[in-house]
């Protein structure tokens, strides 16, 4: 005990330095996660005190919540697979292509691809709403009508059939963010001698080069990129509501887990139930990142 306290006192500068971060980290990240887990075992309407109900929320979620099982969960998986791994592979591929080009062109192109990621979310909803506007004046409708591809204007963001594709395209458009830059920087830093050596050892074409040399060398950046892509996918979860302007989205076509949480928390004030959905979401995120770690991590225990 004495040595423990002495250690603390000896390292007091270090503790002071990490304290502001550690305290905020605890209050705004650790505590909310614990809080969500705690609330998920209760019913709570923000007026009366929470009442303990055991696993009832989870049982309801998986056995009685038809909207969750038939719309929200399948939507989330479709969206997450296309935007997550899909966007990630696209980002790696584009980063690799751009890295093959000489310096000046490379910089300009990577800036151009990165720019949309700064315009994600609400900043650009004004664009999408005009482009995908449901009447003839909408740019996409007017363009397709002009080409004769369609005869009737399509109400893109309010249609059960089109809302999801629009969400995926808009999100992919803005997904060449920090992860993309990280992977490109990683690819550019691969020692050219490795490629030289590879050629001597019988690496025949570019694809083999990517598989045997580039990917193993860039693994740490790819892991960072993967983690960023998981976070971005999650953050994009509000896009359906932003585009269609309503929660729930039309016929639940664009309803993702995040919207379902919002719906129950801030419209029906069933905080306990909403918390149970958040816990499920946290689990999904945690296991996706475990998967990313298994694929790209070099450390077994992380």
């Amino acid at each position, binding site marked *: 005990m004495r040595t423990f306290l002495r250690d603390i006192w000896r390292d007091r500068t270090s503790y002071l330095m990490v304290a502001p971060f550690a305290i905020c980290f605890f209050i705004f990240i650790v505590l909310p996660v614990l809080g969500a887990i705690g609330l998920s075992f209760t019913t709570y309407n923000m007026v009366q005190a929470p009442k303990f109900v055991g696993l009832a929320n989870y049982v309801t979620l998986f056995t009685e919540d038809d909207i969750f099982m038939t719309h929200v969960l399948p939507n989330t998986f479709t969206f997450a697979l296309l935007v997550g791994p899909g966007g990630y592979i696209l980002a790696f591929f584009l980063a690799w292509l751009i890295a093959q080009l000489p310096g000046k062109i490379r910089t300009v192109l990577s800036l151009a691809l990165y720019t949309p990621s700064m315009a994600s979310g609400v900043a*650009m909803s004004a664009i999408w709403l005009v482009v995908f506007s449901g009447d003839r004046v909408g740019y996409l409708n007017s363009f397709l009508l002009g080409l004769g591809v369609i005869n009737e204007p399509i109400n893109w963001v309010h249609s059960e059939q089109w809302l999801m594709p629009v969400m995926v395209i808009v999100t992919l458009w803005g997904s060449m963010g920090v992860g993309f830059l990280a992977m490109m920087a*990683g690819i550019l830093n691969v020692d050219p001698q490795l490629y030289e050596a590879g050629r001597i050892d019988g690496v025949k074409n570019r694809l083999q080069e990517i598989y045997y040399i580039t990917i193993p060398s860039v693994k740490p950046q790819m892991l960072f990129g993967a983690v960023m892509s998981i976070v971005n996918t999650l953050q994009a979860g509000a896009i359906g509501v932003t585009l269609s302007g309503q929660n729930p989205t039309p016929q639940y076509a664009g309803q993702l887990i995040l919207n379902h949480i919002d719906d129950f928390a801030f419209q029906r004030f069933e905080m306990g139930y909403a918390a149970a959905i958040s816990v499920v979401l946290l689990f999904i995120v945690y296991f996706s990142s475990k998967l990313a770690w298994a694929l790209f991590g*070099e450390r077994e225990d992380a």
Partner: protein
Amino acid sequence: MSKMDRTQIVLTIMLTGLAAFMLLPIVFIFMQAFKPLSELFLYPPRFYVMNPTLQNFTQLLMTVDAAVVPAVRYIFNSVVVSVVAVAVVVLVSTLASYALSKHQFRGRNMLLDLTIIALMFAPQAVLIPRYLIIQRLNLIDTYIAHILPFVAAPVSVFLLKQFIDQAPNELLDAARIDGANEWAIVFRVIMPICRPAVSTVALLTFQMVWNNMEPSIYFIENEALRTLPFFLGTLTSGLANNVAGQGAAAAASLLVFVPNLIFFLFQQSKVIQTMAHSGIK
């Protein structure tokens, strides 16, 4: 330039096409923001603006009505919140990542592991407990509610730590021999040599706070304390089938987007330099 082979030329053309296509929506918002009302109502719609005007901006910024909060107020709030948040996050994250990188102390490894796990933390998933915490701390309707949640920034701490790891220990020891204490080392040695990472963290924080409308929705009830993205959100809701508001909304979108772009263009080389060290090992 002269040394490009044929594959590179084909590749350049293809990627330039893609980049141009991806920039179309951005160009579009610029066009839209400067269109007079007559061109916004045009059918069929025209991409280019013929008679650019500042009408949308004046309409947006000059509307003063006692009943509603003027747009300038939202802009002011956004500027204050973003500037303070950037300063605080840079300071707090640099101090923490220096200690995590160069010091040994009890609990260091645990905090580091937690930080790395928290890289994938998305605050949206736990909005309810966050809201309850802000409420308990009596921070509803304060500027602090806009700022403090962002100070828990695992990505910033992680990026800075990866960069500080590269700083040679001999340099720090030399500074210590010259009589510098640990705080002086952070401000006089670490901050200057880690400029690229510090700039990157400043940029990422700015983008996150400047574009974020969540605190305004959930933690702020007083309209006069809400920020620009929230204001933009009110302008664009229900816009899909309404042409009249599109000019003002486009102008407001530009006001949100352009600061991001300018900040990034100034910092881009430093950002790419930092990202080379972003690998998780």
